[in-house]
């Protein structure tokens, strides 16, 4: 899934990048761009705000290239960094008069505009995507991070959301159940999404 040699460790890439190696930097970006973007999208910022937060996170890494003490957990470091950048964007809205949505609440939000639906050729995917977009912020944020490619570790998810690793599994379960509940009755999704082989077996 990664377009570089996975045998090259993050520690080696960081060292090379700190020494000025643009290719090593590009490789780091390629490895973690999906994670950083997914975390940011989980915070439901405005379009330009997301771009800025992501860019800030990368600039932080550039600043700290020689100071990452635990290269094996660079993903968690980046996830923490992008979370802080997103929260700062939300804080600044209060100052600048932007409407602020409390990301910590479980309040339902408006469905995202259907602009993406046209990209989904099959109706089932479009319906599922529409349903997932209507989930409360807590669930959307978690699921959006989990949707990152490559799939993030729970340590990275924990860092991305500021929640304990132990709460991820139960929350994930609850959110996927909510998603299934929303598509019950949808002829495109009902059977295929809610079917649970384990349940059918009993």
């Amino acid at each position: 899934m990664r377009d570089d040699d996975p045998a090259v460790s993050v520690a080696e890439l960081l060292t090379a990048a700190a020494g000025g190696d643009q290719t090593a930097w590009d490789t780091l970006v390629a490895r973690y761009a999906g994670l950083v973007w997914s975390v940011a999208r989980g915070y439901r910022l405005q379009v330009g705000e997301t771009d800025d937060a992501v860019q800030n996170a990368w600039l932080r890494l550039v600043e700290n290239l020689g100071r990452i003490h635990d290269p094996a957990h660079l993903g968690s470091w980046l996830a923490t960094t992008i979370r802080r950048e997103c929260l700062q964007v939300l804080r600044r809205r209060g100052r600048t008069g932007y409407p602020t949505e409390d990301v910590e609440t479980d309040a339902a939000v408006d469905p995202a505009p259907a602009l993406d639906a046209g990209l989904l050729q099959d109706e089932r995917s479009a319906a599922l995507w529409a349903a997932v977009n209507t989930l409360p912020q807590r669930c959307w944020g978690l699921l959006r991070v989990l949707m990152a490619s490559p799939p993030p570790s729970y340590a990275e998810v924990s860092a991305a959301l500021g929640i304990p690793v132990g709460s991820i599994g139960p929350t994930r379960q609850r959110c996927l159940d909510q998603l299934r509940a929303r598509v019950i009755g949808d002829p495109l999704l009902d059977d295929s999404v809610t079917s649970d082989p384990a349940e059918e077996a009993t």
Partner: protein
Amino acid sequence: MTIDPDEQLLDELRAIVARTDPVPAHVDEAARAAFGMRSLDELARLLLDSETAADSGMRGTGETRMLSFGAGEVGLELQVDVDRATATLRGLLRGAAGPVTVEGADGIRHDTDPDEQGWFVVREVALGRTRLRVASASVITEWFVL
């Protein structure tokens, strides 16, 4: 092989999001270009930002924001007043002498010479990502957002 229905659903969502919400090309390009901002100077850490110290009672003093940076002996205190699209920076440089450069993420730079006590003022700084550099001390601040 057992197929976990939750994993299956997440895989399906991951495949969907790869089509509907991939990392935009311009974001990817900017991330790679961020490397061009690499500096070999010592990094002056943001020690205090009144904007993020909301619970410390520092808010409510009008629109003025206070920032404090430090790197070893060198310190930079900054007072930020925003007026529409630009900011006025009033600063105090400690532990070093020489010009202070205000650098925006767009590459625009303002140079200023602090007075004998280290005070300086820079007006009409564009809002957005910014950092300050003290070339004589090889110190550069973290990025902060005006």
